[in-house]
């Protein structure tokens, strides 16, 4: 029964990837183990921590709550796809570094996906909107304040002097 494999064809970070996968293989496990895109992390496997957040067709979702087969025919973007085309850090990634919006780095990819999604649809968010956008992502290190500042900085780089 568990032997049935399903063909999938999913665009991941702009590249079409094809595979044959068992139905119960989660999207996050497929990305990490089969595609070796280990930037997306597993924290709970039951949809509460947000570490596994990826963009599905441009919107953040919990990749631990999807099976890879379900993403067939869709677009996925992971943290590895957030960099600029020349490979350098995006404004948001740079801002996280500037404000020290991370410590251990484990929740960071999920935070980046959630906040990038916010900035994509709302380039000038209020603090309340930022906290709502990352409300589905848990962090045990920072206390969130500097993550919020990172998103604020990314939205308004002119307001904060960057030390580089």
């Amino acid at each position, binding site marked *: 029964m*568990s032997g049935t494999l399903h063909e999938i064809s999913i665009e991941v970070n702009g590249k079409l990837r094809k595979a044959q996968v068992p139905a*119960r*293989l989660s999207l996050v496990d497929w990305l*990490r*183990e089969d595609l*070796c*895109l*280990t*930037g*997306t*992390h*597993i*924290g*709970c*496997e*039951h949809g509460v*921590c947000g*570490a596994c957040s990826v963009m599905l067709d441009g919107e953040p979702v919990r990749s631990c709550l999807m099976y890879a087969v379900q993403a067939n025919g869709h677009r996925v973007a*992971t*943290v*590895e796809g*957030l*960099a600029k085309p020349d490979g350098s*850090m995006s404004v948001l*990634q*740079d801002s*996280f*570094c*500037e404000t*020290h919006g*991370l*410590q*251990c*780095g*484990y*929740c*960071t*990819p999920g935070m*980046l996906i959630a906040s990038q999604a916010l900035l994509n649809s709302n380039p000038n968010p209020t*603090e*309340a909107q930022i*906290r709502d956008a990352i409300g589905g992502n*848990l*962090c*045990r*290190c920072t206390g969130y*304040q500097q993550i*919020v*500042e990172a998103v604020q900085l990314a939205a308004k780089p002119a307001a904060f002097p960057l*030390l580089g």
Partner: protein
Amino acid sequence: MYPTTPPPAAAPLLEEEGKTLRAMTGFRYIGAKRRAKEHPRFVSGRGRFVADIALPGMKHVALVASPHASARIVSIDTSAALAAPGVLYVLTGEEFCANTDSLMIGVDAPKVTRWALARGVVRYAGEWVAAVVADSRALAEDAAERIEVEYEPLPHVIESEAALAPGAPLVHPAHGSNALYHRKFVWGPVEEAFANAGHRIAFRAVWSRSATVPIETFGVAAQWDAGTGILDIWASIQMPKFPDQAARALRLPGNAVRVHYDVDVGGSYGVKRGLKHAVLVGYLAKKLGVPVRLIEDRLENLRGGDMQGPDRFFDMQVAFDADGAIRAMKIRAVDDVGAYAGRSPFQLGKPVTAICGPYAIGAIEYEPTSVMTHKTPQEAVRGFGQSPTNFAIERAIDRVARHLGMDSIELRKKNFIRRDQFPYTIPSGSTYDSGDYHAVLDETLAAIGYASLVRARDEARSSGRLAGIGISSCLEPSGGNSAFEVLMNPKNENTTWMDSCLVRVDLSGSVTGVINNSSAGQGHESLVSTVLGEILEPILSPRSPPTARSAAAWRSCWGVPPQAPRKRSRKR
């Protein structure tokens, strides 16, 4: 609903402090606002956590855990699991405990033994009973479900006072009692102070059990190389003497275990000891001749795959005068370490070094007891025991204030060690090197606008709401968590926390600092490279600060200056 952003005044203050520090010390990099070296890889998803490491041919472990707090294992039937698809091996305690040694315990309690898998009895709900090795974690879980364990539930005790009472079920009967450690320290004329003091109060402060729940659960991968006789371990750890203890349990020479410290750790806050996981996985890797990996899932983590936090009550007695001067304190600390102990009893030892907090209290009696119950074991969660003790001391201060009808801020100031009294030796013998506690408290009150907070509190109260302002002034002894190990176990001849920093300058003038401690987000690489850069840059040439691999904290800093002058003379 949401906390407000910090007041703008805070940022310039820090900038000012940085400039002042640099002016005082002449440091160019230490104390300056800098970015962290680690962060670029984390924001680009290129961190290297243990679950990111793929070893060719790697197999995966799933576990069977006891649902009972205390039970005899009557039988374990692994036949159906062994026949399940993709399964390589099924391990139970019978084999594992016979072929490995018990994990070390810090206190003198040789009959309190511990292995990763239970043998004969289980001592807490969540204790592992069997391990399945299979081609994937999913297949291992499928097989684990087919293992049939027959238990005979036994009486259990899950509360520390009940565990200390006569007739309580014994967690480790061979040890003879549930008291793992007990001692009474009397420093100064305690009884005399209690007899002569104008007032006395007694109360209990309770510090409840918690778990740090890092977003990354514990994980370990191991690979045995029969050719070199070396076991490689990659793990998400925060644990001193980790390779030594793993080697010992595996009956390998200490230098046969190579731990890779350049594994990123996704938060720990004290709990990621990982010894039982590492010994289990190391044993399987060596026995099966394939790399083996165990990543705790969240349920395993919550049930105590690794550890939980202090679970302690303090029976406090305070003797003081009518003017608020505190003469003596008695602290009876009872700590529930759960069913097994590693370093956890030491959490009762660390507070000895700051047993009176910031207060000039001349006589202290400290009676710590470490108790075993049928609960998940405890480990050195953040603060390593000082935080619960600080809580108890601060509760005492507030209660004394309330008893006297005195303002608790005034009471604190009355009892603080004064600035002119430093260096100050406290009754237990440790010396506080410096401090100005009055100034710190005053600056804090000014920074938060205490007067307006009081007004807001009183307004809330007059409109029928409950409101209060909490003040707490604590000392956190930093530095070694090992200094008191010998205090708690005279048989322990080996307390020093071993670490070093190797500084290499190569032909191109690049400097590499190599240390042996993983970072769980503390930014060790940034710290070490900053310090190395500060000291070596003028010697080498004016170039940007050096690179560093695998950083540690202050220990490496202390190691660096003595080396630097030697390098300097060699260069000349």
